[in-house]
């Protein structure tokens, strides 16, 4: 069965205000046309952060995932997000159970090595129980030479009380940072929010272009670009995003179109393999990616604090916010319909409880829709094992039978 037969009933309301976005794309294209070249130069994470540190920049280590980046920028703090630092996990295993996810383990391993690059502290958002506990562990039991901050996002169905609560924790974080960084002016915060707003709009535009095959970037390049947000200065990142060319023409049809969902994109070797196999990831629902971009284009920030509160509640449904499975499924169905994907890749971080709670229902629902699903479990190790390769190839062979020519 062609997968979309089952979802024609979906509302066709546009995810983004497309006409606005396209207009902006044209303006952006005109303004940066002269400086564009075909090769996208994405700075290496370590090199970039080292350069920033050498220039005297304050850098805060931020654990995944949802935090007010604009507030940190306003204090002239560069957030360096810690998702999956490479290397062997040794020290962290002393403190953590075997069944803790590799993001938490790798995060702690990184912290225990007391990297000099982090000089402004660590921020632990409440993404899941493991990360919340890690914040407590690092602060109260392990101890690090820099301050440790926690930021407990609201969970569950959102209402007025959630907004009030979120305003309070934002305000508290601001007051805490003011103790070490001086008073924050409204203008500084507003400027940071305006920058964030521009980045959000550009990211929405790029995701829309991805769904419409109007990119020349490979799968690997696309996710390198998305993940550069984890360590680059806001303005540098915006410049990089503006450098990406969005084609007017739709590209060559790939062998298969996939939507990827999960916490992080697949590793580079898997992305390369998909590129070699002429498979295109045409949409993503990743916590490290589009789940951190509002689902609609927001108005220009007027009151920056109000803007930040509003922004948080306009982020897409996410397992880590525990906001209801049905909403998440409906959101995914919209992405599936808009991206015209042939199958869904669940890139599952081993032992990631929030994702695993949702996954069974989502996979079952997609199979009922007739949409093929591949679930790849990862411990965030590099490489592509023979088993992974077989699973992906078998999935593609399955799609080959069903992909309409």
């Amino acid at each position, binding site marked *: 069965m062609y997968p979309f037969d089952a979802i024609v009933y979906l509302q066709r309301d546009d995810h983004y205000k497309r006409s606005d976005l396209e207009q902006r794309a044209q303006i952006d294209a005109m303004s940066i046309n002269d400086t564009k070249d075909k090769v996208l130069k994405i700075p290496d994470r370590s090199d970039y952060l080292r350069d920033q540190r050498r220039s005297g920049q304050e850098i805060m280590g931020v654990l995944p995932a949802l935090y007010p980046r604009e507030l940190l920028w306003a204090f002239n703090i560069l957030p360096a997000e810690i998702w999956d630092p490479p290397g062997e996990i040794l020290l962290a295993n002393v403190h953590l159970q075997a069944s803790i996810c590799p993001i938490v383990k790798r995060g702690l391993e990184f912290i225990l090595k007391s990297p000099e690059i982090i000089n402004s502290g660590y921020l632990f958002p409440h993404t899941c129980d493991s990360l919340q506990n890690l914040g407590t562990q690092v602060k109260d039991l392990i101890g690090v030479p820099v301050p440790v901050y926690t930021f407990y996002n609201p969970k569950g169905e959102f209402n007025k009380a959630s907004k009030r609560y979120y305003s309070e924790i934002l305000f508290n974080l601001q007051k805490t940072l003011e103790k070490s960084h001086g008073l924050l002016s409204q203008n500084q915060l507003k400027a940071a929010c305006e920058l964030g707003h521009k980045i959000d709009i550009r990211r929405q535009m790029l995701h829309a272009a991805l769904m419409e095959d109007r990119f020349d970037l490979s799968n690997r390049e696309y996710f390198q670009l998305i993940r550069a947000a984890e360590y680059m200065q806001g303005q540098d990142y915006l410049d990089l995003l503006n450098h990406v060319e969005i084609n007017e023409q739709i590209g060559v049809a790939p062998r298969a179109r996939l939507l990827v969902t999960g916490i992080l994109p697949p590793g580079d070797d898997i992305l390369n393999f998909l590129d070699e196999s002429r498979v295109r990831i045409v949409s993503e629902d990743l916590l490290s990616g589009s789940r951190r971009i509002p689902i609609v284009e927001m108005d220009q920030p007027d009151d920056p604090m109000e803007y930040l509160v509003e922004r948080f509640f306009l982020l897409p449904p996410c397992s880590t916010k525990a906001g209801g499975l049905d909403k998440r499924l409906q959101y995914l169905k919209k992405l599936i319909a808009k991206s015209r994907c042939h199958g869904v890749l669940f890139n599952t971080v081993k032992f990631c409880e929030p994702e695993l709670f949702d996954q069974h229902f989502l996979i079952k629902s997609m*199979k009922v829709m007739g949409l*093929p699903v591949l679930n790849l*479990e990862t411990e965030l190790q590099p490489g592509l094992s*023979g*088993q992974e390769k*077989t*699973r992906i*190839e*078998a999935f593609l*062979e*399955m799609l080959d*039978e069903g992909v309409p020519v």
Partner: protein
Amino acid sequence: MADLFFGGIDVGSLSTEAVIINSEEQVLAEVVLITGVNGSEAAQKALNQALELAELAQSQIAALTSTGYGRASVPFATGKTTEISCHGVGAHHLFPSTGTVIDVGGQDSKVIQIDDRGHMLDFSMNDKCAAGTGRFLEVMADRLELELDELSNPAYITGPSTPISSTCTVFAESEVISLLAKDTPREQIVNGLQRSIVNRIWSMVVSIGIHGEVTITGGVAKNQGLIKVLEEKLGQKLNVPKNPQTVGALGAALIAKRHHSDSTST
């Protein structure tokens, strides 16, 4: 016009199989060898033996598909396809009403759902540990000082069984050692081990669901005791091919024939 011949080579982790068919899709030769350390050599050796049985020369093979974990190391293959697709196609060829294929191989096991043309609709795969695979049985047979064939004796599953709680091969082996130390009868332990494997397979079957007739492939399908326990658990009879080990290679040969037809008709 001269008859056309097609080959399929399945380079598995423990064994390598070769099948040669003619244009009528009749099997002319099938060979099973131990893979050893060099998959490429094993593939060539298996093909040579199959060619000898079929009284053919390699140049007479119009197309050959390689499959299995070593599918990329078969230089003379004209195409490669995963063993998951190949087992689906092979099982459908032997038992056309098959909707579900259970393949229990040497190092992994899989459940494949296929449509009425033999095309894969969904699959589930255990490739992370040896639980529920041929290797699990080999380790346990060795520990119990039994030949693999002896585990197949249905007599071992008629009496009482001792539950084996660990699905992990290493821990299950420790459990077997403890049971032997307590003089637990070997028959009871074997019975418990068969049920342990079946439970592991069953959990994969449930994740995909049973559709139509169920066909079991892979070397473990030769274990009569296990088949009986699995049939009890699934509540239906299983299709068991005469040579369950060569179903993947047969599927590969059939795919080679299809690809050849496609390429010559365009």
